[in-house]
């Protein structure tokens, strides 16, 4: 998909705006957006602080649907890495009509997708499954209609073939309670927003401690 597919009938909120909205009620990875001017200053001063490495750099543009496919996302493991990638990305700002470069903390854990869709029959439905590349490859995702109850989360998790990856393997116990809370909060969000057509939280990173939104997209009815 490219910019052409972003139709005007509905309002599409890509990562930056979607996450700004979600920050109000959900745990989102720590990030900061640098506009073109700020990027130039960082590059000339060679001065960047406030994050532990590694960090993730993303070109923040409403015209990019899949960042990986157009090379608009990279991990920087060192300062040197960081400045190199920032320089590379800064050259693409105009091309992608980007608002700037987004720098995020890098969170390690299991990638999960939480999706929301307004279904023509059942109204808002929520999907839970393995995120990242697994979404398109194994399509291990289970749905329930809103409002979701606690038992619905348990049973949808139980539907997943790869549920053990979410629960945690090799002695690790992921913070599933926090994941459940997030899913139930998304259900409440849907109830309050009838114009919400689609919401992708993908990935959300789950580990033993955290359950954090890394990327998101929202489609609203205009």
């Amino acid at each position: 998909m490219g910019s052409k597919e972003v139709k005007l009938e509905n309002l599409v909120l890509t990562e930056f705006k979607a996450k700004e909205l979600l920050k109000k009620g959900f745990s989102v990875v720590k990030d900061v957006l640098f506009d073109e001017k700020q990027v130039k200053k960082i590059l000339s001063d060679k001065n960047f602080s406030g994050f532990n490495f590694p960090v993730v750099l993303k070109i923040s543009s409403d015209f990019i649907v899949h960042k990986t496919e157009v090379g608009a996302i990279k991990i920087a493991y060192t300062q040197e890495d960081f400045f190199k990638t920032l320089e590379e990305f800064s050259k693409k700002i105009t091309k992608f009509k980007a608002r700037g470069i987004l720098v995020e903390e890098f969170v390690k854990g299991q990638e999960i997708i939480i999706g929301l869709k307004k279904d023509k029959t059942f109204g808002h439905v929520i999907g839970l499954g393995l995120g990242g590349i697994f979404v398109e490859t194994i399509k291990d995702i289970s749905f329930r209609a809103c409002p979701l109850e606690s038992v619905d989360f348990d049973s949808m998790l139980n539907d997943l073939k790869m549920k053990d990856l979410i629960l945690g393997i090799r002695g690790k116990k992921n913070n599933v309670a926090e994941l459940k809370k997030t899913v139930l909060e998304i259900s409440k969000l849907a109830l309050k927003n009838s114009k919400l057509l689609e919401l992708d939280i993908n990935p959300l990173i789950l580990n033993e401690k955290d359950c954090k939104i890394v990327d998101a997209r929202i489609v609203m009815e205009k």
Partner: protein
Amino acid sequence: MKKQKNARKSKTFSTYQKTSFSTEVKKTAKLSKQGLDIFFKAENIALIGASHELNKIGNVLFKNLIGSKTVFPVNPNVEVIMNRHSFKSVLEIEEKIDLAIIAVKAEFVPDVVEQCGKKKIKAVLIISSGFSETGNEKLNNKLKNVLDKYNIKCIGPNCLGIYDSYSELDAIFLTQQRLKRPEQGKIAFLSQSGALGGALLGNMADKKIGISKFISYGNAINLNECDFLEYLGNDAETKVICFYVEQIKDGKRFIEVAKKISKEKPLIILKGGMTEQGNKATLSHTGSLAGDARVYSGVFKQVNAIQVENMEDLFSVASLFDKFSDFKEKIKGKRIQVITNGGGYGIVCSDNIAKSNLELSELAPTTKTKIKKFMPAFANIGNPLDLMGDVTNERYKLALEACLDDTNIDLILLVVLYQTPLINGDIVEIISQAQKLRKKPIIVVMNNNKYEESIQESLEEKEVACFEFPEDAIRAIEKFLK
């Protein structure tokens, strides 16, 4: 269970003679709590589009209805239909009419419904097709407006009809010769599709699975699946509900109604149109993954309905719930004991159990001791329990008794290959008696060849659950014990 058939026969024409021209007011259906009783317990029925022409829908319906109901044929083009006065319109009928069944050309339907409205008929069953299903939205809206104007409840249009084995209402437009009706029973069958509904009714009749009500609801112009499910949920004559659906009309209400019903009655659903198309034009992953199949399956789980994958399972699972409803609470586990007289069948059974979410039971030592006493010394006592080719009725009996008393077992899968020489027809009684003890469900797997057919039929007469193939049996058990 089978008295209904005979009752129908004896009533056929004499009923008509006695009641058709009588002016006595017959008891009319209650309109109170059970809203849809006005359809299923209707006594005075106007058949609009009744026909004297053999095999026309209006003729078949007429014949099916007059067996047990007072039928007023309506057809302005003829004077007499099967020796009875044909009314020009429902407005000519003096008696109160509970239900109008309409089988005229689609274009005439709104007008005859208008007449029903004037006659103060509150329930219509519209068999006719040619409405929204063919894209004729204009006619559809016209019909909808008339129904709304007179506040008439409508089943259909574009449906096969309805059937009630208790009130003996047979408003299905297929002849009783070509489509055998199932016996009276406790399973209700709700079907969006008429064709599939008809086919399955025939299968149920063949398999001696009893039915309470059958509803083919077609386009659901005003009453939809939720109204029917709610009604069946409250229906004392229905214990198990089977539902074939392609598209649910009112999703939100469905969730509410189905959640409530499934607390009391098993709700078994076959969803047609499960291809995973999704919406390709969507912008999000969720949008493209949330196709009908995944969303419906999720919702069915959410409401505690049991989703099956094929037509056969719809009724085999329902039949297990029907036969063993008194066990359901007692069964705590999923441990299956296979008893067989053929090694290969035993292996196929255990393979399928291993693949399912069921477990193979472990015979208690005391059970093993009991079994060893009547088995040849070299026999292997375990699971599957192979009673071997020289098995006798007696050996089956003793094996069943021992396993029924074993608390390590939740359910018995009994393979009976009737070809082995030392068993005979008395095996039916042995199995039936064992089942009557109501200690554990016993489910029989029996090859369905010509020689064994009569034995299987005798077992089914005694309400023993029989399957032809182990995999079908195990799939049904898996859904039953879920």
